[in-house]
């Protein structure tokens, strides 16, 4: 989305930019509740997003009327459940604009999707000294699976730094790709900095050297429109619960040609073709990677969530989120004791910061009592924390259902925290 870098100057009034936030808020009942007697201000969607009523209803209706196990029974309900499960796969295919439905593997989340690539695709190809290129802003879920290959097989992790504003230096990344590089594993959007990486450019550079690319899309897919064909990406991981869907389900997009050659991941039912006492053959993708009973009800919920998102004007939603970020960014400028971490051009709607003499946990506790939910800590990105010489930050992450009123509550809460914790 090219418009990402431009901060819209529109007010967030209903319908002003093709997205009616007030109508959207009506879909999320949890936002109507109070905590400690104050209206809930939920600014932790980067950790997990709230779910619209339609997701919960769809899951319940399915469980109440059409649930059974998939792919095995010949009975009516099993056929119905299988239809729903495979329809969900096609919804994910549509959401990512994948060419084929069998390029979508259901997983239990983004973490499992990346571990699947590490184990089934990468591990068999790794010789000692082979390199995997990462950026310092990766989430632990896109670090640890590669550490496994370092520990077990002698792979070398090559870290690409970010600039002080949190942006990625494409030339630095390009330079890190050598003849020994087997994979570039990069986030689509940093969960702390908000930085959106130039995936298309990264992929073009890597492919020019014959290196495949995996993107961790757990944050990116929420805020950006993803087209895996236009990107020509090899692997793209998403998780349901950040996409306004249920926990316990995610998906891996992988090119057909890659999946075909990949060894199985977990072993069990569903993923085999034939099992004998001393011989075994495996099912074709994607079943080969979906051992055991999958998250069936969750798949239906995920499809409902993606349908919900695709039913909105996503460009307008992105503009709305960017307006919130720009508004918040402008407000915190008044706090000379607060330092924003991550100011990359075109960044997504995440505001992370440090406050002089005030620890993130103390800030988060005080905000919490004001009804404002934020995340405090290292956000599972310790190499990045080290890069910015901090042990923890406070993070406010914005979703489609947030408003400027939420930002105002955050700002008022921060002023209060300053009053309590002061600078002694």
């Amino acid at each position, binding site marked *: 989305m090219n418009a990402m870098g431009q901060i819209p100057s529109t007010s967030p009034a209903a319908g002003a930019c093709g997205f009616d936030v007030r109508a959207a808020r009506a879909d999320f009942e949890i936002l109507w509740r109070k905590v*400690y007697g104050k209206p809930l201000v939920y600014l932790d969607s980067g950790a997990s997003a709230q779910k619209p009523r339609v997701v919960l209803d769809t899951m319940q209706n399915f469980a109440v009327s059409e649930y059974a196990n998939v792919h095995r029974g010949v009975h009516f309900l099993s056929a119905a459940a299988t239809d729903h499960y495979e329809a969900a796969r096609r919804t994910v295919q549509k959401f990512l604009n994948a060419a084929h439905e069998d390029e979508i593997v259901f997983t239990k989340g983004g973490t499992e999707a990346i571990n699947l690539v590490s184990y089934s695709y990468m591990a068999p190809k790794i010789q000692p000294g082979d390199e995997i290129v990462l950026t310092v802003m990766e989430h632990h879920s896109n670090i640890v699976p590669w550490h496994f290959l370092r520990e077990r097989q002698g792979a070398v992790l090559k870290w690409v730094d970010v600039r002080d504003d949190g942006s990625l230096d494409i030339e630095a990344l390009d330079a890190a790709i050598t003849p020994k590089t087997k994979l570039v594993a990069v986030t689509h959007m940093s969960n702390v900095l908000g930085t959106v990486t130039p995936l298309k450019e990264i992929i073009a550079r890597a492919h020019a050297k014959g290196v495949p690319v995996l993107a961790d899309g757990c944050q990116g897919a929420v805020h950006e429109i993803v087209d895996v064909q236009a990107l020509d990406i090899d692997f793209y991981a998403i998780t349901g619960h950040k996409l306004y869907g249920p926990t316990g389900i995610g998906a891996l997009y992988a090119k057909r040609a890659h999946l075909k050659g990949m060894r199985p991941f977990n072993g069990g039912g569903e993923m085999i073709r034939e099992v004998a006492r001393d011989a075994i053959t495996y099912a074709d993708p994607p079943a080969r990677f979906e051992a055991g009973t999958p998250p069936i009800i969750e798949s239906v919920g995920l499809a409902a969530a993606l349908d919900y998102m695709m039913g909105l004007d996503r460009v307008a939603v992105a503009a709305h989120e960017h307006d919130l970020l720009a508004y918040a960014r402008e407000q915190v400028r008044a706090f000379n004791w607060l330092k924003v971490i991550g100011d990359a051009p075109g960044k997504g709607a995440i505001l992370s910061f440090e406050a002089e*003499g*005030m*620890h*993130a*946990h*103390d800030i988060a*506790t*005080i905000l919490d*009592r004001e009804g404002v939910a934020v995340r*405090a*800590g*290292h956000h599972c990105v*310790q190499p990045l*924390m080290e890069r910015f010489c901090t*042990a*923890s930050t406070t993070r406010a992450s914005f979703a489609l259902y947030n408003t400027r009123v939420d930002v105002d509550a955050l700002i008022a809460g921060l002023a*209060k925290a300053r*009053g*309590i*914790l*002061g600078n*002694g």
Partner: protein
Amino acid sequence: MDNALRELYQEVILDHSRHPRHYGALEGASHKAEGYNPLCGDKVTVYLKLGEDGRVADIRFEGNGCAISQASASMMTDMLNGRTQADAEKLMEGFLHLVKGEDAAGLSEDDRETLDVMGGISEFPMRVKCATLAWHTYKNALEEGAT
């Protein structure tokens, strides 16, 4: 300000966190341990020197973290200095009860008075681990941290 917050961030606590007592490495420590809370990144190192009589002859800490974890570590070093191990154990037990809002009857009157400022933490279950980090680290140093 709401009362629970006022209780939690009392002036005494803020003062300890801004001006921690007994802060820094201890030369010639007989025991040492590092405490770490992987959830929030709080870190504390406790250094301990036991006297020949088994008392805590000196105790210091280093670390970084939230106001609660730093204040708690500072107060702990203040209170443990000079105690016998048995007395220290009793104090720790009482403290752990206190911050969880449980019966801390085992504490002496003086200790209860000193620790009164930490009582507000029991209203914040998510923060109890911040308050107890230094104490658990002290115990680790004693049991497994002989240098």
